[in-house]
């Protein structure tokens, strides 16, 4: 943030402009007069060596509460107007009564005068002010709309999304006490109400649901929306949506792995626009058929730990590989290359008795090994295939869950599915 702030002080940024009539004009005049004082005071302090920004802050601090003073001046002036109107209305009525009711006793004259004064008072209900179109006209002196502007500790507008603001108070529509809640859009203000004038409490929730409360809000009667500035604490580091990006190799999307990502956390979490509180987050990533090699998940976590579990859906054993060393870095996206998750080479096989491929995690390579000469694999309880490029042959060693699945007839359609997927991939690659 720049140290110097050349923005002029304006105590009534949303108020009427000079030259507008009646109360609107009065408010503008008061604001201009006090603003001039503040500007001169700030200028004097600046000559003393302070920066523009600091000098303004000091000037406002030394001034006390400019808003309160502006309101006092406004009401003093309005009181004067009301008094004058009272006197005028009373005088006119008295003269009329004297002319018409000449001869009636002084008692009746005074009584009539009194009634006329009451009538004059009744006529002093707030009248709509000839105000600019962008300003709301008053509903009544008891109800007022408030405009809540969220600022940071330095008085600058909050530029982060997903703040939420609630204000407790009586709502005009049903006159019931309620908590009015609105979302905040950066660069804009939250307009709430009309609500009843008086004491209110404003709560602002940051994106990670940290609350900031101002219980000293006083909504005062007035012709226009009352602007309230609420200073919000900066969101803690985790509310900046730390994310983990699992860098999935493109080829692996064809294999049909699924992954479950678990984020261990103790506080609040965010995924999209939703929040969870005090629970672990699970994200199921189905890579099968996806053409999205990079998945982003997580955000708003209080935890710095998490794990990823990959499952090979083709095997009867649902072979799993777990990587539990996710380390969130606050304020930035943590990219986890697939290789570093699973540094040990693992081999996935598909197809039977025909085209055999394997995926090497270390090099992100999907290799077609060729036609495997696998004889009677269903009777082999312990099969692992290894490609020998020197001889272009595949040696079978160890065990493989897939072969067992085929052997046990658990999923007879699996070969069809895998073949279809493989053919589709070939077409996509233009082979």
């Amino acid at each position, binding site marked *: 943030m720049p140290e110097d702030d050349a923005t002029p002080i304006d105590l009534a940024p949303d108020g009427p402009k*000079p030259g507008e009539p009646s109360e609107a004009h009065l408010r503008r*005049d008061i604001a201009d*007069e006090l603003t*001039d*004082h503040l*500007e001169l005071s700030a200028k004097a302090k600046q000559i003393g060596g302070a920066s523009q920004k600091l000098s303004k802050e000091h000037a406002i601090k030394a*001034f006390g509460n400019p808003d309160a003073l502006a309101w006092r*001046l406004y009401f003093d002036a309005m009181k004067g107007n009301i008094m004058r109107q009272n006197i005028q209305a009373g005088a006119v009525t008295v003269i009329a009564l004297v002319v018409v009711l000449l001869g009636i006793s002084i008692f009746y004259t005074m009584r009539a005068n009194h009634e006329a004064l009451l009538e004059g008072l009744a006529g002093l209900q707030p009248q709509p002010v000839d105000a600019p179109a962008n300003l709301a006209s008053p509903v009544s002196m008891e109800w007022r709309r408030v405009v809540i502007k969220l600022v940071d500790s330095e008085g600058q507008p909050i530029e982060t999304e997903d703040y939420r603001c609630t204000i407790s108070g009586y709502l005009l529509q049903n006159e019931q006490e309620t908590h009015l809640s609105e979302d905040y859009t950066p660069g804009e203000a939250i307009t709430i109400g009309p609500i009843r004038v008086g004491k209110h409490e404003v709560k602002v929730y940051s994106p990670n649901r940290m609350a900031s409360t101002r219980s000293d809000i006083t909504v005062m009667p007035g012709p226009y929306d009352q602007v309230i500035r609420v200073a919000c604490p900066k969101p803690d580091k985790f509310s900046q949506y730390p994310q983990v990006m699992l860098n999935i190799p493109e080829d692996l999307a064809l294999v049909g792995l699924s992954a479950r990502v678990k984020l261990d956390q103790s506080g609040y979490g965010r995924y999209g626009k939703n929040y969870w509180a005090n629970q672990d987050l699970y994200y199921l990533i189905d890579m099968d058929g996806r053409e999205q090699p990079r998945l982003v998940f997580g955000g708003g976590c209080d935890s710095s730990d998490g794990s990823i579990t990959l499952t090979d859906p083709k095997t009867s054993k649902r072979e799993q590989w777990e990587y539990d060393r996710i380390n969130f870095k606050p304020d930035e996206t943590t990219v986890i290359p697939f290789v570093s998750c699973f540094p040990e080479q693992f081999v996935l096989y598909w197809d039977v008795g025909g085209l055999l491929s394997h995926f090497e995690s270390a090099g992100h390579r999907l290799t077609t090994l060729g036609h495997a000469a696998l004889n009677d694999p269903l009777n082999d309880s312990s099969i692992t295939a290894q490609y020998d490029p020197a001889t272009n042959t595949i040696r079978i060693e160890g065990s493989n869950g897939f072969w067992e699945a085929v052997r046990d007839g658990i999923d007879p359609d699996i070969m069809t599915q895998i073949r279809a997927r493989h053919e589709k991939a070939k077409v996509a690659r233009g082979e």
Partner: protein
Amino acid sequence: MNQLVKGTLELLILDTVAEAPTYGYRICQSVLARSEQTIELREGSLYPALHKLERQKLLKAKWQTTAEGRRRKYYQLTPAGRRKLEQKLSQWRTFSRAIDRTLRGLSTAGAGHA
């Protein structure tokens, strides 16, 4: 000191404005300088008093635009304001002398007992 200033606030304002048409900030500075940094008018007292004097037609206000383009409100004394100033000055001098005499009397009496 603030309590003492309260009773004389209108007098200070009228007297300052009597020199030449001026505005709120300048009035504060002028009083501060003339009182040798003793009397500092608070904005929260000054402006309500200025507005009250204006409503009582003891001051007349006029808006001018500054070189920076800001509107500035200048106050000047009306004939009624000048009469009021003379009246208040006279009252103050009487009061001030009385207080002065009283305090000197007390001081002398105290010394006598000692």
